[in-house]
């Protein structure tokens, strides 16, 4: 991303008749041989393993940790359409264990099994806002003292089910997407997983942990407007942003960067633009905004967690990632669309924003650690 490279490739093999652009993860490390885990499960397990690789605290803390994992696809990647012609026959052909990976709860349970975690474990499935909501709910678990640490994130695999669904909605751009561009045509589906380790600042400081960022505020709202389309004026998302800033104790001037949901669909991007104009109205300088889905596509349930990780990376490196292929941005006097060259500037506070089908919105406000 620092080099401005994106992960998109043309794809034709995902199902007959599909010709589009996707961002796929390569071969996954071999994990837990002898068990049947879906591709979504295995990406989640690999992400979680990496997230705790440097953990040097007491083993009991890891064992008692909580897990909140987001997914929309779950084990759908393992199930083919033939199941609808006769479930029992499909199961007899070896589909029984594949079908067992179908519920999204398996994603969280797989991480727990892989790392030997025995704390509170759940999966969140709130369409494309899932990953950010997983982090918000994990933070609530910490406030409730339900676990010493919580692993929070999301994972979703590419599969014909979702590609076909978005294709049927005519929401896909056959070319690499152009979020916030006036000539945007839709989104590209990606896949991936990201897992963050959350603990209270007091506890992390006490154990001398390397603190990557402080989650200062979070909020979740719903548009309650339409089953799929966002509220056109963006007020549901704007309310979410304002509540997250309120919890963070931040004003609109404090935020240096917004990692946007920015799918590249006509409806989402204009609604989101209105949300930023509303939420940051009165700010002395336009708010810097970019969509990093222009690098790796829309990873659905994993998107919010991946983009939270990228927001934290931006804060750590002072690198504000531009939206790729944004040549003719939506006109807005209140928004500083990041495009072209990578911008570098100190970033004490940044925000990651997600939204999804069903009207759900989530906003996370991160601050740099003082440590």
């Amino acid at each position: 991303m620092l080099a401005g490279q994106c992960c998109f490739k043309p794809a034709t093999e995902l199902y007959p008749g599909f010709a589009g652009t996707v961002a796929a993860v390569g071969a996954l490390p071999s994990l837990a041989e002898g068990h049947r885990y879906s591709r979504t499960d295995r990406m989640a397990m690999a992400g979680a393993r990496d997230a705790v690789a440097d953990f040097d605290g007491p083993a009991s803390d890891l064992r008692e940790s909580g897990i909140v994992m987001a997914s929309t696809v779950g084990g759908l990647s393992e199930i083919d359409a033939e199941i609808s012609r006769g479930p029992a026959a499909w199961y007899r052909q070896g589909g029984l264990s594949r079908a067992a990976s179908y519920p999204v709860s398996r994603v969280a349970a797989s991480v727990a099994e892989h790392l030997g975690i025995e704390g509170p474990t759940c999966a969140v499935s709130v369409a494309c806002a899932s990953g950010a909501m997983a982090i918000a709910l994990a933070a609530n678990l910490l406030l409730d003292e339900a676990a010493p640490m919580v692993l929070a994130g999301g994972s979703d695999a590419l599969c014909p089910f979702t590609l076909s669904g978005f294709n049927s909605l005519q929401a896909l751009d056959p070319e690499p997407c152009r979020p916030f561009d006036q000539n945007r045509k839709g989104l590209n589906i990606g896949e991936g997983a990201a897992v963050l380790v959350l603990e209270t600042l007091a506890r992390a400081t006490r154990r001398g942990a390397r603190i990557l960022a402080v989650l200062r505020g979070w909020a979740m709202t719903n548009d309650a407007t339409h089953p799929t389309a966002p509220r056109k004026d963006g007020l549901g998302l704007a309310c979410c942003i304002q509540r997250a800033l309120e919890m963070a104790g931040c004003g609109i001037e404090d935020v240096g960067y917004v990692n946007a949901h920015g799918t590249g669909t006509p409806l989402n991007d204009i609604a989101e633009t209105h949300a930023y104009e509303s939420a940051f109205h009165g700010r002395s300088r336009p708010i810097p905004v970019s969509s990093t889905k222009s690098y790796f596509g829309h990873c659905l349930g994993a998107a919010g967690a991946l983009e939270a990780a990228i927001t934290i990376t931006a804060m750590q490196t002072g690198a504000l990632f531009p939206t790729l292929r944004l040549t003719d941005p939506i006109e807005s006097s209140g928004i500083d669309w990041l495009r072209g060259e990578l911008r570098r500037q100190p970033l004490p506070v940044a925000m990651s924003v997600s939204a999804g089908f069903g009207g759900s919105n989530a906003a996370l406000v991160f601050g740099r650690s003082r440590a």
Partner: protein
Amino acid sequence: MKTTLPVLTGIGSVTPYGLLAGLISAEPLEPSVITAWSTPGLRRAFLVETFRPASIVPGLKTRRLDRLSAWALVASSLALRDAGIDLSYMDRSRIAVFFATGFGCVELTAAFYQSAATNGWAGTDPITFPETLSNAPASHVALFHDLRGPNVTLSSKSFAAESALLQGASLLRLGQADLAIVLAGDTLTQAVYEWYEAAHLLAPACFSNGPTFSADGFIPSEGVVAMVLEPAGRQTARSYAALGAGRWAAGGDVQAGVRQLLGDVRPDFILCAGNGAPCASSPVSSSACTIAGETEVIPAQAVATGMGEAGALLHLLLALSKRPGQGPALLLGTSAHGGFAALRLELF
């Protein structure tokens, strides 16, 4: 009835017991014969009878929804009615919806697969696709009632409903919402039933008119239960119970975990929540009995056990409907896979 804890003020349910606001009869049910798809012989389950949602909630349009979304809409409406809540006087941006499910919108997922099998992946139905998402029922609840607060759908191996109840109560305690509607449910489809059967999880009573409690499996069930939670002191109507501390865990020592949760509190009742485990040998029963001592144990009922990880709200509803009395209680769920969920309650 003075408490500082979140309280349960409304219940709505769409279950094999019928469509009800408030408590239900709680008499043991017999499973029904499955007729929705052709079966190789007698197959039984606890089923929700077909009904017209608009006859219960005027103006409700559910033609394009699957049963799970329709039931969630009806159950949430009944729960709000039972709680005596007039939403027009509330800040709807501070009303949360938590929905717990094991399989989500599996009916329309099956329909989407059917369209792919028939027309190819390039010919699937755009109307159906968004309704396959697990959060569709909770979104429809928000849309119908204009609820603009947090809207969360979650799933947890064995403990989805308990998890939703705990996280909904947490949102109230943390001041992130003024009211929470917690729902839990699933629908039973051919694919799910045949998966249970192929995995040898079903009780003999699924295949004959035998006793419903068995050590050899469970009887699948379906439905949605909705519960309205309000912060302490806000409610003006009667409350069923106050929700105290709780926890759920994927593993560990059940008894040690529950004792840690209880501290010095000795519950008068333990309300058992079995989660798809064989009824008679459910680990919840043995754990509850060990923990109980002199405490009265309200056993799990087969109709709620059959709802698997989404069954705890029905377990709680059935236990409340039996009216064991007033005082401190513990809702306890355990799983054959390990782990537990426990919630301290004060019954009114």
